[in-house]
């Protein structure tokens, strides 16, 4: 394998993990834009997706597509419950309180997963076999293609949802100005609940499609969540293309970083996160230039 092939290999596998980060980042952005909250429990939704997928497939013996669907629905339900019982009751929602509550929520959910399914790592079978596909000198697994396909579908889907449905438009209105949205008759509380449903469902899907490649356990949510957040920060908290690009960029950089030193692979995302927060702290999401939903 020569250098350029190797490079292509790193980039391709980086793009597939990057797609996952992009989906998680979208989840962050959707909730942030409708509520102004950074949901630290976002990674836990991703973990729940993967773990529930494993549960329904292995323990209940359901077919993979049904297990997939059930896992997404149950995770979305968790998202609703989380919003209803942890976010909504707060009387004075300062950012600090919200950070503490969502952190509390995230370790609570992690604990629930640990007690329900133990501390072991679990694996899902790939969606359509393990026969590698060679592509311009690099090899891909069919699962990589599934990841790309599902990510693209989800991105197009959310885009259409936000621009062509009445609920989606109402959510966009809340993102621009919650108070004004309320004044023109939009039920802001319902839109907030929608945003939790949407982002927990997207998170769950990300968790399921990555589970066959990286395995899953009760504690994968922390890292995945933080990297998804990093993607959203690169994308300026937009729930559209910029965050997706942020995720892909992060995935590729991390994959190339792992080529140099696998031990420090995880540090790459956080160094990027700090650099962006330091040097473009507010700059990356100047309102005019990026799409905010």
């Amino acid at each position, binding site marked *: 394998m020569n250098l350029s092939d190797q490079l292509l290999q790193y980039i391709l596998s980086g793009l597939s993990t990057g797609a996952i980060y992009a989906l998680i980042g979208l989840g962050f952005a959707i909730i942030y834009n409708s509520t102004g*909250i*950074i949901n*630290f429990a976002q990674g836990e939704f991703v973990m729940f997706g993967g773990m529930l997928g494993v549960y329904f497939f292995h323990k209940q013996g359901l077919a993979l597509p049904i297990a997939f669907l059930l896992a997404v629905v149950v995770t979305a339900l968790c998202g609703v419950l989380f919003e209803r019982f*942890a976010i909504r*009751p*707060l*009387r*004075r929602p300062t*950012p*600090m*309180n*919200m*950070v*503490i*509550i969502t*952190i*509390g*929520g*995230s*370790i*609570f*959910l*992690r*604990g*629930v997963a*640990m*007690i329900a399914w133990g501390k072991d790592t679990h694996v899902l079978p790939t969606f359509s076999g393990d026969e590698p596909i060679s592509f311009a000198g690099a090899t891909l697994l069919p699962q990589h293609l599934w990841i790309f396909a599902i990510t693209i579908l989800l991105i197009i889907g959310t885009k259409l949802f936000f621009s062509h449905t009445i609920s989606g438009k109402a959510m966009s209105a809340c993102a621009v100005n919650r108070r004004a949205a309320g004044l023109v008759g939009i039920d802001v509380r319902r839109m907030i609940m929608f945003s939790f449903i949407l982002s927990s469902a997207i998170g769950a899907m990300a968790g399921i499609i990555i589970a066959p490649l990286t395995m899953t356990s009760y504690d994968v949510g*922390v890292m995945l969540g*933080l990297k998804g*957040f990093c993607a959203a*920060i690169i994308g300026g908290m937009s729930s559209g293309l910029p965050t997706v690009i942020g995720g892909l960029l992060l995935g590729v950089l991390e994959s190339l970083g792992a080529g140099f030193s696998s*031990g*420090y692979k*995880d*540090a790459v995302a*956080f*160094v990027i*996160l*700090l650099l962006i*927060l*330091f040097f473009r*702290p507010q700059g990356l999401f100047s309102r005019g230039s990026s799409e905010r939903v």
Partner: protein
Amino acid sequence: MQRELLKFALFAALVLVAAPLYFQGGYILNVLVFVGINTMLAIGLNLLLGFAGQISLGQAAFYGLGAYISAILTTTHGFNPWLAMIFAALAVGALAFVIGFPILKLKGHYLAMATLGFGIIVYIVINEYVDLTGGPSGFPGIPNLSIGSISFDSDMKNYYLIWVATLGVMLLAINLTRSRIGRALRAIHDSEVAAQVLGINARLLKVQIFACSAMISSLAGSLYAHYITFVSPSTFGFHFSVELLTMVVIGGLGSIYGSFLGAALITLLPEFLRAFHDYDIIFYGALLMIMTIFLPGGLIQGGTLVWNYLRNTLGGKGGADA
């Protein structure tokens, strides 16, 4: 101030005289040493979070850096432990001061994420820099502290050593919060812009208190390293930063004795909940959410509310308004 000093003296007497007499050594004393270490750490975080209103999810990193710098300097390079401790605190304080400027420009969620990111980077470096730190398997053989011929090698001796340090930190914090600086910090907490308009150098002050809190954490880390004589990275991970946050929030934001209460509760609770060993993580999570929703002032505020209620109902109708 008079009453404050009296309160502190009472607390110190309770901790230094009554507790060791009552417990006599043994396992519970070992737990109480950890209450001391965690109280110190919680106060460090509380200065930042409760008074200045700035969150940090990277406190475990400063704690870990203090512990590892002490460990490496004394064991690998043969430094005097006390000297190493001072050096560690200064180095960690300087690091916090330097990164404080860009980090504390951020607010709310972004500040939380940035400090968290910093904490994870430090954790990864400690884990991966095996030549220096011993990596995941830990760093053994750290010497105990000693004064002259007295070596702090038992739980009882360490109890006194660590609680004297903790009481020192408490006194420092009490004085700090009642000084001009304390009032300025509270002004920043309420409104940074308003504070600046009043002539407070908010940016510098935030960084200074961040560095101060890092130095306290580093000191706690050094004491921990010399007490346990072994350090490993898992002690200083993200989970511990969250545990510290839980202590401060449960005890009461902005209350020094609250930090002690929170630290004592979170440190002692697992000892009483042995049967529910794995459930403690759920418990922390639920506690964080419930406290923030229903009792944002923490245990200290809850205690005050109950006390006032009792005084008003029992003290008859002539008492103050409820």
